C-alpha cells in the first residue's frame, strides 16, 4: 500500500481569515434584507408606529402639545427601539440553531467566533439604520436636534455601545431558548415593562411613589436621560456615566455566561 500523501491541513484559522469569515457572515445577515424587505420594514415600522401613536395620541394629553411631546419622547423612543432590537440577535441565532444552519457553520473549518461576531456586526448596522430612520422621520414631524452633529453622533455612539453590551444577554437567550417564538415572548414580557417604567416616554415624577422609586434605579431611565441630554440639551455626563456602568455590569455578568454556553455548542 502506498503511504497516504494528503497535504496536512492547517491547524487553526489565521487572524486575516478570521476577519474575512466574520465579514462574510455579516454580509450574509445583511443580504437577507434584499430578499426579505419585511425584516427591514419590521425594523422600521414598529418605531415609526410608536412615534406617530405617542406623538399624536398621547402627546397632547401628556405635554399639552404634540410638538413639545415629540421633542421629549423621540430620544426615549430611540432608546426603547435600540433595546428591543438587541433581541434580534437572539432571534437570528436561535433560528440558525433550529434550522441547522448553525451546525453547518460549525462543521466548516472556520473561526469558532465568526458566526457570533458576524451576526453582531450585522445587527449593529441595523441599529444604525433604525436610529437614522427614526431621527429622520422625527425631524420631518418637527423634532429638532439642538446640540448639533456632535450631540447626534454622541447619542448614536452611546446607544451602539449599550446595545453591544446587551447583545451578550441576547446571545445567551438565543442559545438557550427552545424556539424563536420564546424570544419574542421575552421581548414582550420583559423589555416592554422595563422600557415603559422609565423616563423614556413620560416624566416619572407623575408615577405613584413606588413606581417612581423603581424608575429612579431603572437603567432605561439613565440611558433615556443621557440620550435626551445629548440630543436636546440637559445633563449629559452623569446619566451617560451611569448608563456606561450599567452596560459594563451587563457585560461582566452575561458575556462569560454566554461564552460558556456558546463554547458548549461550538
Amino acid at each position, binding site marked *: 500500500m502506498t503511504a497516504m500523501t494528503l497535504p496536512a*491541513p492547517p491547524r487553526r484559522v489565521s487572524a486575516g481569515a478570521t476577519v474575512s469569515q466574520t465579514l462574510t457572515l455579516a454580509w450574509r445577515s445583511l443580504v437577507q434584507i434584499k430578499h426579505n424587505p419585511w425584516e427591514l420594514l419590521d425594523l422600521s415600522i414598529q418605531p415609526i408606529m410608536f412615534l406617530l401613536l405617542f406623538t399624536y395620541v398621547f402627546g397632547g394629553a401628556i405635554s399639552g402639545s404634540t410638538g413639545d411631546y415629540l421633542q421629549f419622547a423621540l430620544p426615549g423612543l430611540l432608546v426603547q427601539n435600540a433595546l428591543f432590537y438587541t433581541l434580534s440577535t437572539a432571534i437570528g441565532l436561535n433560528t440558525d440553531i433550529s*434550522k441547522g*444552519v448553525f451546525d453547518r457553520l460549525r462543521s466548516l473549518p472556520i473561526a469558532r467566533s465568526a458566526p457570533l461576531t458576524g451576526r453582531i456586526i450585522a445587527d449593529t448596522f441595523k441599529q444604525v439604520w433604525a436610529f437614522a430612520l427614526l431621527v429622520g422621520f422625527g425631524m420631518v414631524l418637527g423634532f429638532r436636534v439642538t446640540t448639533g452633529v456632535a450631540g447626534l453622533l454622541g447619542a448614536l455612539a452611546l446607544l451602539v455601545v449599550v446595545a453591544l453590551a446587551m447583545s451578550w444577554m441576547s446571545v445567551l437567550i438565543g442559545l438557550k431558548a427552545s424556539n424563536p417564538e420564546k424570544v419574542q415572548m421575552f421581548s414582550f414580557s420583559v423589555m416592554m415593562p422595563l422600557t415603559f417604567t422609565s423616563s423614556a416616554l413620560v416624566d416619572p415624577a407623575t408615577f405613584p411613589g413606588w413606581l417612581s422609586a423603581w424608575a429612579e434605579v431603572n437603567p432605561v431611565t439613565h440611558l433615556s436621560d443621557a440620550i435626551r441630554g445629548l440630543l436636546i440639551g440637559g445633563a449629559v455626563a452623569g446619566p451617560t456615566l451611569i448608563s456606561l456602568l450599567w452596560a459594563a455590569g451587563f457585560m461582566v455578568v452575561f458575556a462569560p455566561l454566554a461564552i460558556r454556553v456558546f463554547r458548549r455548542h461550538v
Partner: protein
Amino acid sequence: MPSGRVVPMTGNHYAIEAQGLVKRYGETRALDGVDLAVPAGRLLGVLGPNGAGKTTAVRILATLLTPDAGRASVHGFDVTSQAHQVRSMIGLTGQYAAVDEMLTGVENLLMIGRLLGLSRGDARRRAAALLERFHLTDAGGRAAKTYSGGMRRRLDLAASLVGSPQVLFLDEPTTGLDPRSRTELWGVVRGLMADGVTVLLTTQYLEEADQLADDIVVFDHGKVIASGTSDQLKATTGAQVLEVRPAAEHQLPTVSAVVEEVVGDPPEVSGGRVTAAVRDPAVVPAIVRRLDDLGIIASELTLRKSSLDEVFLALTGHRAEEREAGDEKVDDLEVYA
C-alpha cells in the same frame, strides 16, 4: 493516540475510524460503545431505526459533539483534539436541510465558498458549477425558502460539496423525500462515489442501504449489532426464503401444512402466500412433489435470499422502519443536548 502534533497515522488506511464511542444523555445511552472503520473511497451505510444513535454518531464524527468515551478519527485526525483539520476534510448534510432560507441558492453556496477561503470569482464559479450539477441553475437566483423539499436537499448537498470534501457524512439524506427525489439523490451519491469520495450514510431505509452501500452496519439501541456487505448480512440469518403462492386461495391452509411438514417449522401465511425460512435447498423439489400429488397448482414458487428487512427483523426482533414513539425523544435530544 496522536498528541497535539499533526501527524496523520501512517499505516492507517481508514478514512473514518471510531473505537468504543459512548455518548449519554442523562439515563439514555445514545451510543454504547460503537466501533466503525471505513476504508477510503467506500460507502458505509449505517442502518437503524429512529433513536438507534445514528445521528449521534454522525455528529461526533463531524466534530459537532464530544463523545463521553472512546475516540474517532478522520484520515488519522482526531475529531476532538484535531477538530479543525477534520473540518477541512469533511462535508455534512443533516436530516433537515441546513440552508439559509432567506438567501438564494447562489448566495448560500457563495457564502460557503467565501468562508472556505475561495476568492470571490472562484466562489462564484464553484457555485455555478454545483448548481448546474444538481439541476438548480434556473432556481439559483431564488430564495431557498421557495424551493421544494427535494431542491432544498440538493442545495444542502451542494453546500456540503463546495470544499470538495474527501469524506462526506449524509445523515438520512432522503428522509421525507418523495420516491422520485430519492432516486435522484441516489444518482448523485453514486456520482460522488465514482469521484472517490468516502461516504458515511445513515438511513432507516433498508432499500437505500442495499442500493448504495458497499458495507453496512446495523445500529440498534446505540450498539452495532451486525456488520458486513449486504450479501453477508443476508447470509447471516443462515437461510433462504421460500415463497409459494397457490393459484386458488382456498388451498393456502393445505400448502401451509405441506410446507410445515417438509421444512419442519410453521411457515408465515400472508398476502395469499406461504413464506418459510429454508436452510436446505433440497426441500424445494420435495415440496413440489407433494403439491403435485395433491393436485395443487402453484402460481408462484420462488427461493430467494432473505431481504435486509428480514435480516433486520431477525437481528433486532423489530422492523427497521417501524417508528416507536418512545424512541423519538432520543433523536430530539440529539439535536441540541
